[in-house]
Protein backbone atom coordinates (compact mmCIF):
# COMPACT_ATOMS: atom_id res chain seq x y z
CA UNK A 1 0.00 0.00 0.00
CA UNK A 2 1.22 3.48 -0.88
CA UNK A 3 1.91 5.81 2.03
CA UNK A 4 -0.91 8.28 2.39
CA UNK A 5 -0.03 11.78 1.22
CA UNK A 6 -2.20 14.76 0.40
CA UNK A 7 -5.46 14.18 -1.43
CA UNK A 8 -7.08 16.97 -3.42
CA UNK A 9 -10.32 16.68 -5.34
CA UNK A 10 -13.95 17.65 -5.47
CA UNK A 11 -15.83 15.92 -2.66
CA UNK A 12 -18.80 13.74 -3.56
CA UNK A 13 -21.72 14.71 -1.28
CA UNK A 14 -23.72 11.68 -0.13
CA UNK A 15 -26.52 13.36 1.75
CA UNK A 16 -27.89 10.41 3.77
CA UNK A 17 -27.61 9.36 7.42
CA UNK A 18 -27.12 5.80 8.70
CA UNK A 19 -25.75 4.46 5.41
CA UNK A 20 -25.20 0.78 6.22
CA UNK A 21 -22.71 -1.53 4.58
CA UNK A 22 -25.49 -3.30 2.68
CA UNK A 23 -26.19 -0.03 0.87
CA UNK A 24 -22.45 0.32 0.20
CA UNK A 25 -22.19 -3.22 -1.21
CA UNK A 26 -25.47 -5.15 -1.45
CA UNK A 27 -25.53 -8.72 -0.12
CA UNK A 28 -25.68 -10.38 -3.53
CA UNK A 29 -22.05 -9.41 -4.15
CA UNK A 30 -20.72 -10.82 -0.86
CA UNK A 31 -20.29 -14.24 -2.31
CA UNK A 32 -17.56 -13.07 -4.66
CA UNK A 33 -14.28 -14.24 -3.26
CA UNK A 34 -11.70 -12.06 -4.94
CA UNK A 35 -10.69 -8.94 -3.06
CA UNK A 36 -10.55 -6.60 -6.04
CA UNK A 37 -13.12 -5.33 -8.48
CA UNK A 38 -15.79 -4.37 -5.95
CA UNK A 39 -15.89 -0.74 -7.14
CA UNK A 40 -18.43 -1.59 -9.82
CA UNK A 41 -20.85 -2.73 -7.10
CA UNK A 42 -20.43 0.35 -4.87
CA UNK A 43 -23.86 1.74 -3.86
CA UNK A 44 -25.25 -0.63 -6.49
CA UNK A 45 -28.97 -0.32 -5.70
CA UNK A 46 -28.72 3.47 -5.61
CA UNK A 47 -26.54 3.74 -8.70
CA UNK A 48 -28.46 1.48 -11.04
CA UNK A 49 -32.04 0.75 -11.93
CA UNK A 50 -33.06 -2.80 -12.64
CA UNK A 51 -31.27 -3.90 -15.79
CA UNK A 52 -28.14 -1.96 -14.89
CA UNK A 53 -29.19 1.47 -16.20
CA UNK A 54 -27.46 4.30 -14.32
CA UNK A 55 -29.84 6.43 -12.22
CA UNK A 56 -29.28 10.03 -13.30
CA UNK A 57 -30.33 11.44 -9.92
CA UNK A 58 -27.68 9.59 -7.91
CA UNK A 59 -24.61 11.65 -7.08
CA UNK A 60 -22.04 9.04 -8.16
CA UNK A 61 -23.51 9.21 -11.65
CA UNK A 62 -22.96 12.98 -11.85
CA UNK A 63 -20.04 13.46 -14.28
CA UNK A 64 -18.76 16.38 -12.15
CA UNK A 65 -17.67 13.90 -9.46
CA UNK A 66 -16.14 11.35 -11.79
CA UNK A 67 -12.61 11.84 -10.48
CA UNK A 68 -13.59 12.53 -6.89
CA UNK A 69 -11.46 10.83 -4.27
CA UNK A 70 -13.21 12.28 -1.23
CA UNK A 71 -16.64 11.19 -0.02
CA UNK A 72 -18.77 13.40 2.23
CA UNK A 73 -21.12 11.31 4.33
CA UNK A 74 -23.44 11.78 7.29
CA UNK A 75 -23.98 10.33 10.80
CA UNK A 76 -23.18 6.69 11.51
CA UNK A 77 -21.71 5.92 8.09
CA UNK A 78 -20.86 2.24 7.57
CA UNK A 79 -23.20 0.79 10.20
CA UNK A 80 -24.58 -2.73 9.96
CA UNK A 81 -22.76 -5.81 8.73
CA UNK A 82 -18.99 -6.00 9.33
CA UNK A 83 -18.35 -6.91 5.68
CA UNK A 84 -14.98 -5.49 4.65
CA UNK A 85 -16.20 -5.68 1.06
CA UNK A 86 -17.74 -2.25 1.74
CA UNK A 87 -14.33 -0.69 2.23
CA UNK A 88 -12.84 -2.68 -0.63
CA UNK A 89 -15.56 -1.25 -2.89
CA UNK A 90 -14.95 2.36 -1.79
CA UNK A 91 -11.21 1.90 -2.27
CA UNK A 92 -11.57 0.16 -5.61
CA UNK A 93 -13.90 2.92 -6.83
CA UNK A 94 -11.26 5.50 -5.95
CA UNK A 95 -12.29 7.06 -2.65
CA UNK A 96 -9.32 7.61 -0.32
CA UNK A 97 -10.94 9.93 2.22
CA UNK A 98 -14.39 9.77 3.84
CA UNK A 99 -15.55 12.70 5.94
CA UNK A 100 -18.53 12.36 8.29
CA UNK A 101 -19.71 13.31 11.75
CA UNK A 102 -19.50 9.67 12.87
CA UNK A 103 -18.66 6.19 11.61
CA UNK A 104 -19.62 2.72 12.74
CA UNK A 105 -16.80 1.10 14.69
CA UNK A 106 -15.85 -1.92 12.58
CA UNK A 107 -16.17 0.06 9.35
CA UNK A 108 -13.91 2.78 10.78
CA UNK A 109 -11.20 0.24 11.60
CA UNK A 110 -11.57 -1.50 8.26
CA UNK A 111 -10.83 1.80 6.48
CA UNK A 112 -7.33 2.07 7.94
CA UNK A 113 -6.57 -1.53 7.01
CA UNK A 114 -7.14 -0.59 3.41
CA UNK A 115 -5.46 2.78 3.20
CA UNK A 116 -8.63 4.88 3.44
CA UNK A 117 -8.67 7.86 5.81
CA UNK A 118 -11.99 8.30 7.65
CA UNK A 119 -12.25 11.78 9.20
CA UNK A 120 -14.70 12.77 11.92
CA UNK A 121 -15.72 16.43 11.98
CA UNK A 122 -18.36 18.37 13.94
CA UNK A 123 -21.77 19.09 12.38
CA UNK A 124 -21.06 22.69 11.42
CA UNK A 125 -17.83 21.80 9.65
CA UNK A 126 -19.55 19.03 7.72
CA UNK A 127 -22.26 21.48 6.60
CA UNK A 128 -19.55 23.83 5.39
CA UNK A 129 -17.92 21.05 3.38
CA UNK A 130 -21.28 19.99 1.92
CA UNK A 131 -21.84 23.54 0.71
CA UNK A 132 -18.47 24.07 -0.96
CA UNK A 133 -18.36 23.87 -4.72
CA UNK A 134 -14.57 23.83 -5.07
CA UNK A 135 -11.90 21.25 -4.47
CA UNK A 136 -11.03 20.12 -0.96
CA UNK A 137 -7.50 19.25 0.11
CA UNK A 138 -6.85 16.76 2.89
CA UNK A 139 -3.39 16.72 4.44
CA UNK A 140 -2.82 13.90 6.90
CA UNK A 141 0.63 15.04 8.01
CA UNK A 142 -0.68 18.38 9.26
CA UNK A 143 -4.14 16.93 10.07
CA UNK A 144 -5.97 19.61 8.14
CA UNK A 145 -8.71 19.98 5.57
CA UNK A 146 -8.42 23.00 3.27
CA UNK A 147 -11.66 24.21 1.73
CA UNK A 148 -12.61 27.61 0.32
CA UNK A 149 -9.37 29.12 1.55
CA UNK A 150 -9.75 28.09 5.17
CA UNK A 151 -7.96 25.35 7.03
CA UNK A 152 -9.90 23.01 9.29
CA UNK A 153 -7.99 20.80 11.73
CA UNK A 154 -9.05 17.23 12.43
CA UNK A 155 -8.20 14.61 15.07
CA UNK A 156 -6.87 11.14 14.44
CA UNK A 157 -5.47 8.47 16.75
CA UNK A 158 -1.65 8.61 16.57
CA UNK A 159 -1.27 4.93 15.70
CA UNK A 160 -3.73 5.18 12.82
CA UNK A 161 -1.94 8.24 11.50
CA UNK A 162 1.37 6.43 11.56
CA UNK A 163 -0.08 3.38 9.84
CA UNK A 164 -1.47 5.46 6.98
CA UNK A 165 1.53 7.79 6.61
CA UNK A 166 3.92 4.86 6.41
CA UNK A 167 1.63 2.61 4.41
CA UNK A 168 1.64 -0.03 7.15
CA UNK A 169 -1.78 -1.32 6.19
CA UNK A 170 -0.45 -4.73 5.46
CA UNK A 171 -0.58 -7.43 8.14
CA UNK A 172 3.00 -8.58 7.78
CA UNK A 173 4.39 -5.08 8.09
CA UNK A 174 2.06 -4.21 10.93
CA UNK A 175 3.36 -7.19 12.84
CA UNK A 176 6.95 -6.05 12.38
CA UNK A 177 6.04 -2.65 13.70
CA UNK A 178 3.92 -3.76 16.63
CA UNK A 179 6.40 -2.65 19.30
CA UNK A 180 6.97 0.68 17.61
CA UNK A 181 3.24 1.30 17.34
CA UNK A 182 2.71 0.65 21.04
CA UNK A 183 5.67 2.88 21.89
CA UNK A 184 4.45 5.60 19.56
CA UNK A 185 0.95 5.41 20.97
CA UNK A 186 2.31 5.75 24.49
CA UNK A 187 4.42 8.78 23.69
CA UNK A 188 1.66 10.52 21.75
CA UNK A 189 -1.23 9.88 24.07
CA UNK A 190 -3.93 12.49 23.50
Amino acid at each position, binding site marked *: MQPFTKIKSLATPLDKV*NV*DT*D*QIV*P*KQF*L*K*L*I*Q*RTGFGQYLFY*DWRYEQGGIARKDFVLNDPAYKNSRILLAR*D*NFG*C*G*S*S*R*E*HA*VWALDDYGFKVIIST*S*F*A*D*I*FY*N*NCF*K*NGILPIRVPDDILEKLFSTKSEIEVDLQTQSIKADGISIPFQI*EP*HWKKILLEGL*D*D*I*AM*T*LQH*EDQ*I*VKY*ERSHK*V
Partner: protein
Amino acid sequence: MLNITEKILARASGKKEVSPGDVVFVNVDKVMVHDVSGPGVLAVFEKLRKKGMVIDKVWNPDKVWVAEDHFVPAADKISAQNIVLLTNFTKQFGIKKHFKYGMGQYGICHTLSHEEAMVLPGEVYVGGDSHTNTTGALGAFAAGLGHTDVAYVLLNGKIWFKVPETLFFKINGKLPDHVMAKDLILKIIGDIGTDGAAYKTMQFGGTGVSEMSVESRLTLTNMTTEAGAKSGIVEPDQKIRDYLAARGVTRYDEVHGDADAQYEKIYEYEGSEMEPIVAKPFSPENTVVARDLSSVELDKAYIGSCTGAKLEDLQAAAKILKGRTVKIRTEILPAAMSIFRKAMDEGLLKIFMDAGVVVGPPTCGACCGAHMGVLAKDEICISTTNRNFPGRMGHVESQTYLASPLVAAASAVTGKITDPRDLK
Protein backbone atom coordinates in the same frame (compact mmCIF):
# COMPACT_ATOMS: atom_id res chain seq x y z
CA MET B 1 -12.30 0.52 40.14
CA LEU B 2 -12.19 -1.50 36.93
CA ASN B 3 -15.31 -2.82 35.28
CA ILE B 4 -15.50 -6.32 33.80
CA THR B 5 -14.53 -5.24 30.28
CA GLU B 6 -11.46 -3.36 31.48
CA LYS B 7 -10.44 -6.30 33.64
CA ILE B 8 -10.74 -8.80 30.80
CA LEU B 9 -8.73 -6.56 28.48
CA ALA B 10 -6.12 -5.92 31.18
CA ARG B 11 -5.67 -9.62 31.83
CA ALA B 12 -5.51 -10.44 28.12
CA SER B 13 -2.84 -7.80 27.55
CA GLY B 14 -0.76 -8.70 30.61
CA LYS B 15 -1.42 -5.43 32.41
CA LYS B 16 -2.55 -4.70 35.94
CA GLU B 17 -5.03 -2.14 34.78
CA VAL B 18 -6.22 -0.32 31.69
CA SER B 19 -8.36 2.78 31.19
CA PRO B 20 -10.83 3.71 28.49
CA GLY B 21 -8.91 5.12 25.51
CA ASP B 22 -5.77 3.01 26.08
CA VAL B 23 -4.65 1.00 23.09
CA VAL B 24 -3.85 -2.55 24.18
CA PHE B 25 -2.56 -5.61 22.35
CA VAL B 26 -4.61 -8.51 23.65
CA ASN B 27 -4.18 -12.24 23.33
CA VAL B 28 -7.26 -13.69 21.70
CA ASP B 29 -8.83 -16.85 23.15
CA LYS B 30 -11.18 -17.74 20.30
CA VAL B 31 -11.76 -16.56 16.76
CA MET B 32 -14.61 -17.44 14.40
CA VAL B 33 -15.23 -17.10 10.69
CA HIS B 34 -18.30 -18.05 8.66
CA ASP B 35 -19.15 -18.53 5.02
CA VAL B 36 -19.01 -14.80 4.23
CA SER B 37 -16.07 -13.67 6.35
CA GLY B 38 -14.10 -16.91 5.81
CA PRO B 39 -13.74 -16.44 2.05
CA GLY B 40 -13.06 -12.73 2.74
CA VAL B 41 -10.20 -13.66 5.07
CA LEU B 42 -8.86 -16.11 2.49
CA ALA B 43 -8.87 -13.27 -0.05
CA VAL B 44 -6.69 -11.28 2.37
CA PHE B 45 -4.37 -14.32 2.71
CA GLU B 46 -4.17 -14.45 -1.08
CA LYS B 47 -3.14 -10.81 -1.25
CA LEU B 48 -0.40 -11.45 1.32
CA ARG B 49 0.83 -14.51 -0.55
CA LYS B 50 1.14 -12.44 -3.72
CA LYS B 51 3.45 -10.17 -1.75
CA GLY B 52 5.64 -13.15 -0.92
CA MET B 53 4.39 -14.00 2.57
CA VAL B 54 4.27 -17.70 3.36
CA ILE B 55 1.00 -18.67 5.04
CA ASP B 56 0.95 -22.36 5.86
CA LYS B 57 -0.42 -22.34 9.39
CA VAL B 58 -2.68 -20.44 11.72
CA TRP B 59 -1.48 -19.48 15.18
CA ASN B 60 -3.52 -22.11 16.97
CA PRO B 61 -6.03 -24.27 15.06
CA ASP B 62 -7.70 -25.31 18.34
CA LYS B 63 -8.77 -21.73 19.00
CA VAL B 64 -10.32 -21.20 15.59
CA TRP B 65 -13.81 -22.34 14.74
CA VAL B 66 -15.93 -22.15 11.64
CA ALA B 67 -19.67 -21.85 11.02
CA GLU B 68 -21.70 -22.25 7.85
CA ASP B 69 -24.72 -20.01 8.24
CA HIS B 70 -25.34 -17.14 5.84
CA PHE B 71 -25.78 -18.96 2.55
CA VAL B 72 -26.64 -22.53 3.68
CA PRO B 73 -28.34 -24.55 2.34
CA ALA B 74 -26.21 -23.41 -0.59
CA ALA B 75 -28.25 -20.62 -2.16
CA ASP B 76 -26.55 -20.89 -5.55
CA LYS B 77 -23.38 -22.06 -7.29
CA ILE B 78 -21.11 -19.41 -5.79
CA SER B 79 -22.24 -20.04 -2.22
CA ALA B 80 -21.80 -23.78 -2.75
CA GLN B 81 -18.28 -23.04 -3.91
CA ASN B 82 -17.62 -20.93 -0.80
CA ILE B 83 -18.54 -23.89 1.41
CA VAL B 84 -15.97 -25.98 -0.48
CA LEU B 85 -13.47 -23.19 0.11
CA LEU B 86 -14.21 -23.24 3.87
CA THR B 87 -13.85 -27.03 3.97
CA ASN B 88 -10.47 -26.86 2.25
CA PHE B 89 -9.43 -24.09 4.64
CA THR B 90 -10.22 -26.08 7.80
CA LYS B 91 -8.60 -29.19 6.33
CA GLN B 92 -5.44 -27.36 5.32
CA PHE B 93 -4.96 -25.64 8.66
CA GLY B 94 -6.08 -28.51 10.90
CA ILE B 95 -9.12 -26.67 12.31
CA LYS B 96 -11.32 -29.28 13.96
CA LYS B 97 -14.34 -27.23 15.02
CA HIS B 98 -16.16 -26.77 11.74
CA PHE B 99 -19.94 -26.98 12.09
CA LYS B 100 -21.00 -28.30 8.71
CA TYR B 101 -24.46 -28.02 7.25
CA GLY B 102 -25.92 -31.50 6.98
CA MET B 103 -23.55 -33.14 9.46
CA GLY B 104 -25.18 -32.99 12.87
CA GLN B 105 -24.93 -29.82 14.88
CA TYR B 106 -24.66 -26.66 12.85
CA GLY B 107 -26.40 -23.29 12.91
CA ILE B 108 -25.94 -19.56 13.11
CA CYS B 109 -22.46 -18.73 14.40
CA HIS B 110 -23.63 -16.56 17.31
CA THR B 111 -26.03 -19.27 18.44
CA LEU B 112 -23.35 -21.98 18.26
CA SER B 113 -21.03 -19.76 20.30
CA HIS B 114 -23.28 -20.35 23.34
CA GLU B 115 -25.09 -23.58 22.44
CA GLU B 116 -21.74 -25.32 21.99
CA ALA B 117 -19.95 -23.29 24.70
CA MET B 118 -17.36 -22.24 22.13
CA VAL B 119 -16.61 -19.15 24.20
CA LEU B 120 -16.24 -19.01 28.00
CA PRO B 121 -16.46 -16.34 30.69
CA GLY B 122 -13.43 -14.09 30.92
CA GLU B 123 -12.24 -14.83 27.39
CA VAL B 124 -11.48 -12.47 24.52
CA TYR B 125 -13.49 -13.62 21.52
CA VAL B 126 -13.46 -12.07 18.08
CA GLY B 127 -15.37 -13.03 14.97
CA GLY B 128 -15.77 -11.98 11.39
CA ASP B 129 -19.32 -10.76 11.94
CA SER B 130 -20.80 -7.63 13.45
CA HIS B 131 -23.10 -9.50 15.84
CA THR B 132 -20.16 -11.22 17.55
CA ASN B 133 -21.13 -8.97 20.49
CA THR B 134 -23.85 -11.55 21.26
CA THR B 135 -21.51 -13.86 23.15
CA GLY B 136 -20.63 -11.17 25.68
CA ALA B 137 -23.72 -12.34 27.57
CA LEU B 138 -21.56 -15.23 28.85
CA GLY B 139 -19.21 -12.75 30.54
CA ALA B 140 -16.63 -12.61 27.75
CA PHE B 141 -15.27 -9.67 25.76
CA ALA B 142 -16.78 -10.36 22.35
CA ALA B 143 -16.37 -8.07 19.34
CA GLY B 144 -16.73 -8.24 15.59
CA LEU B 145 -13.85 -7.50 13.24
CA GLY B 146 -13.32 -6.92 9.53
CA HIS B 147 -11.62 -9.48 7.30
CA THR B 148 -8.12 -8.00 7.52
CA ASP B 149 -8.26 -7.96 11.32
CA VAL B 150 -9.53 -11.53 11.47
CA ALA B 151 -6.70 -12.57 9.13
CA TYR B 152 -4.28 -10.85 11.49
CA VAL B 153 -5.71 -12.74 14.48
CA LEU B 154 -5.58 -16.05 12.62
CA LEU B 155 -1.88 -15.56 11.97
CA ASN B 156 -0.80 -13.94 15.22
CA GLY B 157 -3.34 -14.77 17.91
CA LYS B 158 -3.64 -11.19 19.00
CA ILE B 159 -5.15 -7.89 18.03
CA TRP B 160 -5.20 -4.39 19.37
CA PHE B 161 -8.21 -2.68 20.83
CA LYS B 162 -8.84 0.76 22.13
CA VAL B 163 -10.32 0.09 25.57
CA PRO B 164 -13.96 1.18 25.23
CA GLU B 165 -15.91 3.36 27.63
CA THR B 166 -18.76 1.41 29.23
CA LEU B 167 -22.41 2.42 29.38
CA PHE B 168 -24.20 0.54 32.17
CA PHE B 169 -27.88 -0.33 31.74
CA LYS B 170 -29.44 -1.13 35.09
CA ILE B 171 -32.74 -2.96 34.78
CA ASN B 172 -34.81 -2.95 37.95
CA GLY B 173 -37.43 -5.62 38.45
CA LYS B 174 -38.72 -8.43 36.28
CA LEU B 175 -40.15 -7.98 32.80
CA PRO B 176 -43.90 -8.76 32.57
CA ASP B 177 -44.88 -12.03 30.86
CA HIS B 178 -45.92 -10.33 27.63
CA VAL B 179 -42.59 -8.51 27.36
CA MET B 180 -39.35 -10.09 26.18
CA ALA B 181 -35.70 -9.04 26.22
CA LYS B 182 -36.19 -8.00 22.60
CA ASP B 183 -38.71 -5.34 23.65
CA LEU B 184 -36.29 -4.01 26.25
CA ILE B 185 -33.32 -3.75 23.91
CA LEU B 186 -35.46 -2.12 21.18
CA LYS B 187 -36.62 0.39 23.79
CA ILE B 188 -32.99 1.12 24.75
CA ILE B 189 -31.86 1.51 21.12
CA GLY B 190 -34.82 3.81 20.50
CA ASP B 191 -33.68 5.92 23.46
CA ILE B 192 -29.95 6.15 22.73
CA GLY B 193 -30.02 5.86 18.92
CA THR B 194 -28.15 3.67 16.44
CA ASP B 195 -24.87 5.38 17.24
CA GLY B 196 -25.67 5.94 20.91
CA ALA B 197 -23.02 3.47 22.02
CA ALA B 198 -20.53 3.97 19.17
CA TYR B 199 -17.07 2.62 20.13
CA LYS B 200 -18.46 1.77 23.58
CA THR B 201 -19.40 -1.29 25.60
CA MET B 202 -23.00 -1.77 26.70
CA GLN B 203 -23.15 -3.64 29.99
CA PHE B 204 -26.44 -4.93 31.40
CA GLY B 205 -27.15 -5.58 35.07
CA GLY B 206 -29.63 -5.11 37.88
CA THR B 207 -32.31 -7.43 39.17
CA GLY B 208 -34.11 -7.45 35.82
CA VAL B 209 -31.05 -9.00 34.20
CA SER B 210 -30.23 -11.44 37.00
CA GLU B 211 -33.84 -12.66 36.80
CA MET B 212 -33.47 -13.11 33.05
CA SER B 213 -32.58 -16.41 31.37
CA VAL B 214 -29.23 -16.74 29.61
CA GLU B 215 -30.99 -16.77 26.24
CA SER B 216 -32.75 -13.47 27.03
CA ARG B 217 -29.44 -11.87 27.98
CA LEU B 218 -28.06 -13.03 24.62
CA THR B 219 -30.84 -11.08 22.90
CA LEU B 220 -29.72 -7.93 24.73
CA THR B 221 -26.05 -8.28 23.84
CA ASN B 222 -26.86 -9.34 20.26
CA MET B 223 -28.63 -6.06 19.57
CA THR B 224 -25.90 -3.86 21.10
CA THR B 225 -24.46 -3.88 17.59
CA GLU B 226 -27.51 -1.90 16.47
CA ALA B 227 -26.59 0.87 18.91
CA GLY B 228 -23.09 0.97 17.42
CA ALA B 229 -21.47 -0.76 20.41
CA LYS B 230 -18.03 -2.31 20.27
CA SER B 231 -19.25 -5.04 22.62
CA GLY B 232 -22.06 -6.00 24.95
CA ILE B 233 -21.55 -7.79 28.24
CA VAL B 234 -23.25 -9.20 31.33
CA GLU B 235 -21.35 -10.28 34.45
CA PRO B 236 -21.39 -14.08 34.76
CA ASP B 237 -23.51 -15.57 37.55
CA GLN B 238 -24.89 -18.94 38.64
CA LYS B 239 -27.25 -19.03 35.65
CA ILE B 240 -24.25 -18.83 33.30
CA ARG B 241 -22.42 -21.52 35.29
CA ASP B 242 -25.46 -23.81 35.10
CA TYR B 243 -25.90 -23.10 31.40
CA LEU B 244 -22.29 -24.01 30.66
CA ALA B 245 -22.33 -27.01 33.02
CA ALA B 246 -25.31 -28.36 31.06
CA ARG B 247 -22.98 -28.23 28.07
CA GLY B 248 -20.22 -30.08 29.88
CA VAL B 249 -17.99 -27.10 30.69
CA THR B 250 -17.08 -26.27 34.27
CA ARG B 251 -13.50 -25.01 34.04
CA TYR B 252 -12.91 -21.40 33.11
CA ASP B 253 -11.59 -18.29 34.72
CA GLU B 254 -14.42 -15.85 35.42
CA VAL B 255 -13.78 -12.15 35.53
CA HIS B 256 -15.89 -9.71 37.53
CA GLY B 257 -15.82 -5.94 37.78
CA ASP B 258 -14.65 -4.32 41.00
CA ALA B 259 -17.29 -3.25 43.50
CA ASP B 260 -16.42 0.38 42.72
CA ALA B 261 -16.22 -0.14 38.94
CA GLN B 262 -16.48 3.00 36.87
CA TYR B 263 -18.89 3.54 34.00
CA GLU B 264 -19.18 6.44 31.63
CA LYS B 265 -22.90 6.62 32.21
CA ILE B 266 -25.58 4.63 34.01
CA TYR B 267 -29.08 4.29 32.55
CA GLU B 268 -31.93 2.90 34.64
CA TYR B 269 -35.05 1.12 33.39
CA GLU B 270 -38.00 -0.22 35.35
CA GLY B 271 -38.51 -3.73 33.97
CA SER B 272 -42.09 -4.01 35.17
CA GLU B 273 -43.08 -0.90 33.20
CA MET B 274 -41.87 -2.25 29.86
CA GLU B 275 -44.28 -2.80 26.98
CA PRO B 276 -44.08 -4.69 23.68
CA ILE B 277 -42.02 -2.50 21.32
CA VAL B 278 -41.66 -2.56 17.54
CA ALA B 279 -38.98 -0.87 15.41
CA LYS B 280 -40.46 0.53 12.20
CA PRO B 281 -38.61 0.62 8.88
CA PHE B 282 -35.83 1.57 8.23
CA SER B 283 -33.90 1.68 11.46
CA PRO B 284 -33.78 -0.26 14.74
CA GLU B 285 -33.99 3.08 16.58
CA ASN B 286 -37.35 3.85 14.97
CA THR B 287 -39.29 2.42 17.90
CA VAL B 288 -42.90 2.73 19.07
CA VAL B 289 -45.12 0.62 21.32
CA ALA B 290 -46.65 -2.25 19.35
CA ARG B 291 -50.18 -1.07 20.03
CA ASP B 292 -49.54 2.13 18.05
CA LEU B 293 -49.09 0.03 14.93
CA SER B 294 -52.21 -2.11 15.17
CA SER B 295 -53.42 -0.86 11.78
CA VAL B 296 -50.30 -1.99 9.89
CA GLU B 297 -51.23 -4.87 7.58
CA LEU B 298 -48.57 -7.49 6.99
CA ASP B 299 -47.61 -9.90 4.21
CA LYS B 300 -45.32 -12.08 6.19
CA ALA B 301 -43.96 -13.06 9.61
CA TYR B 302 -40.40 -14.29 10.05
CA ILE B 303 -39.22 -15.94 13.26
CA GLY B 304 -35.55 -16.67 12.84
CA SER B 305 -31.95 -15.46 13.32
CA CYS B 306 -29.44 -15.38 16.17
CA THR B 307 -31.59 -12.72 17.82
CA GLY B 308 -34.99 -14.33 17.64
CA ALA B 309 -34.90 -18.12 17.12
CA LYS B 310 -33.35 -19.51 20.28
CA LEU B 311 -35.30 -22.15 22.18
CA GLU B 312 -37.18 -19.70 24.40
CA ASP B 313 -38.05 -17.60 21.34
CA LEU B 314 -39.64 -20.66 19.76
CA GLN B 315 -41.38 -21.49 23.04
CA ALA B 316 -42.81 -17.96 23.13
CA ALA B 317 -44.06 -18.26 19.55
CA ALA B 318 -45.59 -21.65 20.35
CA LYS B 319 -47.41 -20.23 23.35
CA ILE B 320 -49.21 -17.85 20.98
CA LEU B 321 -49.64 -20.22 18.02
CA LYS B 322 -50.99 -23.18 20.00
CA GLY B 323 -54.51 -23.89 18.77
CA ARG B 324 -54.47 -20.95 16.36
CA THR B 325 -53.72 -20.61 12.66
CA VAL B 326 -51.70 -17.99 10.86
CA LYS B 327 -53.32 -15.47 8.56
CA ILE B 328 -50.16 -14.53 6.67
CA ARG B 329 -47.17 -16.48 5.36
CA THR B 330 -45.07 -17.39 8.37
CA GLU B 331 -41.65 -18.98 8.55
CA ILE B 332 -39.87 -20.29 11.63
CA LEU B 333 -36.19 -21.17 11.34
CA PRO B 334 -34.59 -22.45 14.57
CA ALA B 335 -31.14 -20.91 15.00
CA ALA B 336 -29.25 -24.19 15.42
CA MET B 337 -29.87 -27.92 15.01
CA SER B 338 -29.68 -28.44 18.79
CA ILE B 339 -32.56 -25.97 19.17
CA PHE B 340 -34.45 -27.56 16.28
CA ARG B 341 -34.19 -30.93 18.05
CA LYS B 342 -35.37 -29.54 21.40
CA ALA B 343 -38.29 -27.87 19.63
CA MET B 344 -39.18 -31.24 18.17
CA ASP B 345 -38.83 -33.04 21.51
CA GLU B 346 -41.03 -30.43 23.22
CA GLY B 347 -43.73 -30.71 20.57
CA LEU B 348 -43.27 -27.14 19.32
CA LEU B 349 -42.86 -28.18 15.69
CA LYS B 350 -46.28 -29.82 15.74
CA ILE B 351 -47.83 -26.62 17.12
CA PHE B 352 -46.16 -24.62 14.35
CA MET B 353 -47.22 -26.98 11.59
CA ASP B 354 -50.78 -27.22 12.93
CA ALA B 355 -50.86 -23.41 12.77
CA GLY B 356 -49.85 -23.53 9.10
CA VAL B 357 -46.29 -22.29 9.60
CA VAL B 358 -43.40 -23.56 7.49
CA VAL B 359 -40.43 -24.68 9.58
CA GLY B 360 -37.08 -24.37 7.85
CA PRO B 361 -33.48 -25.36 8.54
CA PRO B 362 -31.16 -23.20 10.65
CA THR B 363 -29.64 -20.42 8.55
CA CYS B 364 -29.22 -16.64 8.53
CA GLY B 365 -31.55 -16.96 5.56
CA ALA B 366 -33.81 -14.01 4.94
CA CYS B 367 -32.57 -12.05 7.97
CA CYS B 368 -29.74 -10.75 5.81
CA GLY B 369 -31.77 -11.04 2.63
CA ALA B 370 -29.62 -13.92 1.46
CA HIS B 371 -32.30 -16.47 0.53
CA MET B 372 -35.02 -18.65 2.14
CA GLY B 373 -37.97 -16.30 1.90
CA VAL B 374 -36.69 -12.85 0.97
CA LEU B 375 -39.17 -10.01 0.49
CA ALA B 376 -40.59 -8.64 -2.77
CA LYS B 377 -41.04 -4.95 -3.59
CA ASP B 378 -43.56 -3.32 -1.21
CA GLU B 379 -43.93 -6.46 0.92
CA ILE B 380 -44.24 -5.84 4.65
CA CYS B 381 -42.79 -8.26 7.16
CA ILE B 382 -42.74 -8.53 10.93
CA SER B 383 -39.53 -10.16 12.00
CA THR B 384 -37.70 -11.29 15.12
CA THR B 385 -34.37 -10.37 13.51
CA ASN B 386 -32.06 -7.47 14.35
CA ARG B 387 -31.96 -5.11 11.36
CA ASN B 388 -34.53 -3.38 9.19
CA PHE B 389 -32.35 -1.22 6.96
CA PRO B 390 -33.60 -0.61 3.39
CA GLY B 391 -33.40 -3.90 1.50
CA ARG B 392 -32.05 -5.83 4.48
CA MET B 393 -34.49 -8.73 3.98
CA GLY B 394 -34.90 -8.50 0.23
CA HIS B 395 -36.11 -5.81 -2.15
CA VAL B 396 -34.87 -2.33 -1.33
CA GLU B 397 -38.49 -1.18 -1.26
CA SER B 398 -39.71 -3.93 1.09
CA GLN B 399 -40.36 -3.10 4.74
CA THR B 400 -39.38 -4.89 7.92
CA TYR B 401 -40.79 -4.25 11.40
CA LEU B 402 -38.58 -5.65 14.18
CA ALA B 403 -40.36 -7.28 17.11
CA SER B 404 -40.20 -9.96 19.79
CA PRO B 405 -41.24 -13.54 18.99
CA LEU B 406 -44.44 -12.97 21.01
CA VAL B 407 -45.40 -9.95 18.91
CA ALA B 408 -44.35 -11.61 15.65
CA ALA B 409 -46.43 -14.73 16.42
CA ALA B 410 -49.46 -12.69 17.54
CA SER B 411 -49.17 -10.62 14.35
CA ALA B 412 -48.95 -13.78 12.24
CA VAL B 413 -52.30 -14.84 13.69
CA THR B 414 -54.10 -11.56 12.96
CA GLY B 415 -52.23 -10.37 9.86
CA LYS B 416 -51.68 -7.00 11.52
CA ILE B 417 -49.12 -5.83 14.05
CA THR B 418 -50.49 -7.11 17.33
CA ASP B 419 -49.61 -6.74 20.99
CA PRO B 420 -49.89 -10.27 22.43
CA ARG B 421 -52.24 -8.92 25.14
CA ASP B 422 -54.76 -8.00 22.46
CA LEU B 423 -55.00 -11.45 20.93
CA LYS B 424 -58.42 -13.00 21.42
